[in-house]
């Protein structure tokens, strides 16, 4: 496999809180290839949103520090890149964001068109030679075309409306449009359906998948729902307490899951006949994480060595890595 477009290597992020330093990310690694859709799955608080913000370089200032690792995008470490260049050339242009809550992400006092055109002013994919009126026409055409692609009825009219005049589903379509407008290489979709009605969620996911396939854009899709990841993603990465626990392509992941935490997640999906099992205990306290494996306090198969040493990340099959001592063991934990 050639070098991936994005590779997150051993990234650690600390937050300063009242309870002391919290290691929100602890040596996370993952890779995204061109055009690949990667699902980042985990409970709330597992660090998936923090990872998304780390890649975008928009961690909350003052309280957070990246204490280690690299985020290599197209050969360059984004963590070293000067802030101005990152904001101008990468964010919103080569890497864009679909936020969790479209109601919050639009400024309520400005028309959708104003906000979209402000994005295009600095992030338009217009060829360098275009300027003035030609550039304006290009931008306008591109906006209309992408709004049509995300099924916004009468785009020209929609641009004149204020955010509160749209439904949540439509707002999220607009957010998706904005993520695609700059013609990026990578889109970070941070739980893009959580704030939406269940009936809308499937539509939005299908739209995202179709758009990404058509434009050949890679997507990092964070979710707490394995079923969604199964439908949407090429690869699935399961995170727990700031670490990736298992990382495999979707087929291999669902055919032969290896990590006890993954079994837990799979068991907690409500099915027709199967009884829903929950994972016992609560998310590890990140201010004072358990020694050794971070999951061992909730793991049905924890052994003595799990408390003594940190389990290695091992490749148990081609492209299938797992952070556990028990990689050979495949039976479903009870």
């Amino acid at each position, binding site marked *: 496999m050639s070098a991936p477009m994005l590779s997150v290597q051993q990234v650690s992020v600390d937050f300063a809180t009242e309870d002391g330093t919290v290691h929100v990310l602890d040596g996370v690694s993952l890779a995204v290839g061109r055009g690949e859709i990667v699902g980042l799955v985990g409970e709330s608080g597992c660090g998936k949103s923090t990872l998304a*913000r780390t890649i*975008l370089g*928009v961690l909350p200032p003052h309280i957070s520090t990246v204490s280690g690792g690299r985020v290599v995008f197209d050969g360059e470490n984004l963590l070293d890149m000067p802030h101005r260049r*990152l*904001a*101008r050339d*990468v*964010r*919103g*242009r080569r890497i*864009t*964001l679909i*936020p969790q*809550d479209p*109601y*919050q*992400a*639009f*400024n*309520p*006092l*400005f*028309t959708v068109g*104003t906000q979209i055109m*402000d*994005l295009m002013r*600095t*992030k338009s994919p217009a060829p360098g030679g275009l300027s003035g009126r030609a550039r304006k026409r290009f931008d306008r055409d591109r906006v209309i075309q992408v709004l049509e692609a995300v099924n916004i009825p009468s785009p020209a009219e929609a641009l004149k409306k*204020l955010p*509160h005049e749209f439904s949540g589903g439509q707002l999220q379509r607009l957010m998706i449009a*904005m993520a695609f407008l700059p013609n990026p290489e990578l889109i970070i979709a941070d739980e893009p359906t959580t704030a939406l009605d269940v009936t809308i969620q499937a539509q939005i996911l299908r739209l995202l998948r179709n758009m990404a396939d058509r434009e050949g854009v890679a997507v990092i899709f964070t979710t707490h729902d394995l079923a969604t990841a199964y439908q949407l993603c090429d690869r699935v990465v399961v995170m727990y307490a700031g670490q990736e626990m298992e990382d495999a392509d979707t087929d291999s992941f669902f055919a032969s899951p290896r990590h006890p935490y993954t079994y837990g997640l799979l068991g907690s999906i409500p099915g027709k006949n199967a009884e829903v099992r929950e994972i016992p205990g609560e998310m590890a306290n990140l201010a004072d994480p358990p020694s050794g494996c971070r999951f061992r306090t909730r793991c049905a198969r924890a052994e003595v060595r799990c408390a003594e040493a940190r389990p290695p990340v091992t490749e148990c099959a081609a492209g299938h890595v797992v952070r556990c001592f028990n990689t050979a063991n495949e039976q479903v934990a009870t």
Partner: protein
Amino acid sequence: MGYASVWKILPIVLSRAVWVVPTLLGLIVITFVLSRVIPADPVALAAGEAATVEQVEALRVKLGYDRPILAQFGTYLGNVFVGDLGRSLFTDREIVEDLADRLPATIELTLVSMFIAIALGIPLGILSAVKRNSLMDHLVRILSVGGLAVASFWLAIMLQLLFSMRLGWLPLSGRYSGFAPESATGLLLLDALLDLDFDSLSIALQHITLPALTLAIPSMATIVRFTRAGVLEVLNSGFVMYERAMGFPESTILFKYVFRNALTSTVTQIGLVFGLLLAGAVVIEAVFNWPGIGLYAYNSILQSDYNAIMGFTLWAGGIFIFVNLIVDIVHSLIDPRGTA
């Protein structure tokens, strides 16, 4: 430019304007009732110490204070509606005329104060929020808390001592040195500007500096605090996070998007701040001998000239209602969502 069009806000303006009538009516009732429940006899005061009981009663009948309270109120209300606020119990002059003579001085003073409070308050509030917890922020916060806490009359006297008595840079009091030039609008600064009379402008400016500044300080402190809080709240909002993540230029985020959202709360404050200015004007005009309505009210209060006090209260209340109507309109222009 994305701001709400006039047609869209017209219903909001009308619905607010309709409320002006009952509000004014309530104001008139309250002023009237207050003037009648105060445990002093305005007629006796007006008649003077030497007057006999018969003379006081005769004056009472003449002024109509012997009639039933509701009848008095009816007459008063009717008079107010035709613009008659009665006569001063002391000078026997028409109160409307007294107020009209003094109005321009107060309007000039409050407008300049308002301008100072807004022009300094909003930028300081924004700066303080953007540079949160910096030395600058702490300084601004100390000054704004101090500005609210300090007594205006004390500050006024201290400034007079410093700038007029010790340094001699600015005049001690009054609105103009000698006789003010013939005035078309009654606003000396505006007249001087229109006539390109820079000597007069300079004299008038020197006179207005200290009173306007002193009057502006509590209002400015309020505006600083609300702007700071507003900007901080907006900086933490989801759309700022989104715009940053999408690499919007920081200047666009701050001056276009954050500014307008933060302004909605500040603008609402400005209406209330105007009340501070009106109340402050009474004290400041008295200290600086500024020939405006505040000084008139101050003198009227000392003399228990009830009709004049009622006249001032009505004027102040009316202008306050008017300013807040304008604030509502401006607010609906900034926030197009129609919060009527």
